[in-house]
């Protein structure tokens, strides 16, 4: 198919559905598409694409998701949605309903669970790492609030726990 404005091969195909319901098709070459502002040839930005994806896949459950926050690191689902980065390993559990459709979309063609290398060193106990993460968050908050006595106590607890493991 040729571009509607010149004779170059058309590589950009767009169908616009106007509010009245009328469909308008556009077939353009890349140069004309750029000229007509149909495509924006800016640098490919993965995180903005990711944000669009995250937005597109929460749909109906977004109410429920918008209230979610990780009890361990404190990140809210909406922060993840805005930044595209999770806060701690535990978020994969906490935000599961939002993440699953997203993961399927990103990792198209793969199974819905991990296949491949596994670390030989297993976690000490299922909750051990989460508790340590939680203590670290409390310590961070204590420092931010300048509650230094509590911070010192928490630091001792963390040390103790690390050494016990």
């Amino acid at each position, binding site marked *: 198919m040729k571009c509607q404005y010149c004779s170059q091969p058309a*590589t950009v195909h767009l169908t616009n559905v106007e509010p009245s319901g009328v469909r308008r098709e556009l077939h353009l070459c890349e140069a004309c598409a750029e000229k007509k502002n149909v495509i924006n040839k800016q*640098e*490919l*930005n*993965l995180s903005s694409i*990711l944000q669009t994806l995250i937005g597109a896949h929460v749909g109906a459950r977004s109410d429920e998701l918008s209230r979610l926050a990780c009890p361990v*690191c404190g*990140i809210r689902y909406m922060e993840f949605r805005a*930044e*595209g*980065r*999770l*806060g*701690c*390993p535990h978020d*994969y559990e906490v935000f599961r309903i939002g*993440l699953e459709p*997203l*993961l399927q979309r*990103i*990792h*198209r*063609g*793969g*199974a*819905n*669970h*991990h*296949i*491949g*290398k*596994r*670390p*030989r*060193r297993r*976690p*000490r106990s299922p909750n*051990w*790492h989460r508790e*340590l*993460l939680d203590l*670290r*968050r409390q310590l*961070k908050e204590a*420092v*931010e609030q300048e509650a230094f006595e509590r911070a010192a106590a928490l630091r001792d607890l963390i040390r103790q726990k690390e050494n016990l493991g």
Partner: protein
Amino acid sequence: MILDELTHSSGEWLRGEGPEADIVVSSRIRLARNLADFPFSNRASAMQKGEIEGLLRERVTKLDGSIRLQYLQLHVLEPIDRQFLVERQLISREHATSEGQRGVAIEARETRSIMINEEDHLRLQVLRSGFQLDEAWDDINQLDDLIEQRVTYAFSEEFGYLTACPTNVGTGMRASVLLHLPALHMTKQIEKVFRALQKINLAVRGLYGEGTRASGDFYQISNQVTLGKAEGDILKEIREVVPQIISYERMSRNTLLRESRSLIQDKVSRAYGTLRSATMMTSEETMDLLSSVRLGINLSLIDDLTIPAVNELFLQTQPAHLQKLQGQALDGEERNVARANYLRSKLKPNPN
């Protein structure tokens, strides 16, 4: 200091050796890993980032086995030195410009490096010259095992290695090859190749990764999917598709030689001539001209220059490298003069 040693060499991955090195410049694999009991780097407080950096620095510089790494704390380096490491592909652009306590461990031969407190706590990287993905995998797998003896990774049976960005979760592996595809670009076939690659979920990027333009006709091809496929299968997909791209590039080169020999000879000669005589040269123009010269060598249209020498010129004419070589900071115009001087001195016609 390691940076000064590096300035006068080029990394092993630029040697221009290894299988298919006329087209496959290098093969690279990186693994994203995180500690199980810290928040991800972007969520960590300054103090926590300090703890993570300190802990991992101590661990990665004392690995068992024969691996010896030199460590650089990036937050105390000058911006130009960080840029220098980016140009050598030892750290990412994000790692160079981000904030807070962070570092990189580098092996002297520059085939292995480990970024600490990038987007993930650990980013392991192995770089090889030519088409050597399997060798790169064996190497990085072993490095990963060595580190894992000393730290507990964030891992779930269901989601695999847990990463700050869900695009990396699972294997945490990004495998890529850096291809030089001037003939596919000239014959306008390159877009077709891209579309075909996208259909099979492989990504195409420019030389310096995400968001960079493909200057000098260099393209990085890498896997998109990290969850639900084993490392071996991901590598196999790339290993199978790259030979096809190589053969398309070779076909295009032959077509050019057969049907437009004088045109291609002219393009190569003009590029070589300009590089040897210009007195000001931008980075972008240098990349484009060197690309034509590199093609000229591979087509035997130039016989007094080698691929490793051209690979080296690509690297040494990058802004930070140029300034390190000159030993001083230069503004844009001064850099263009220095770059042209450097190129003329390196490409002087042989008096015989």
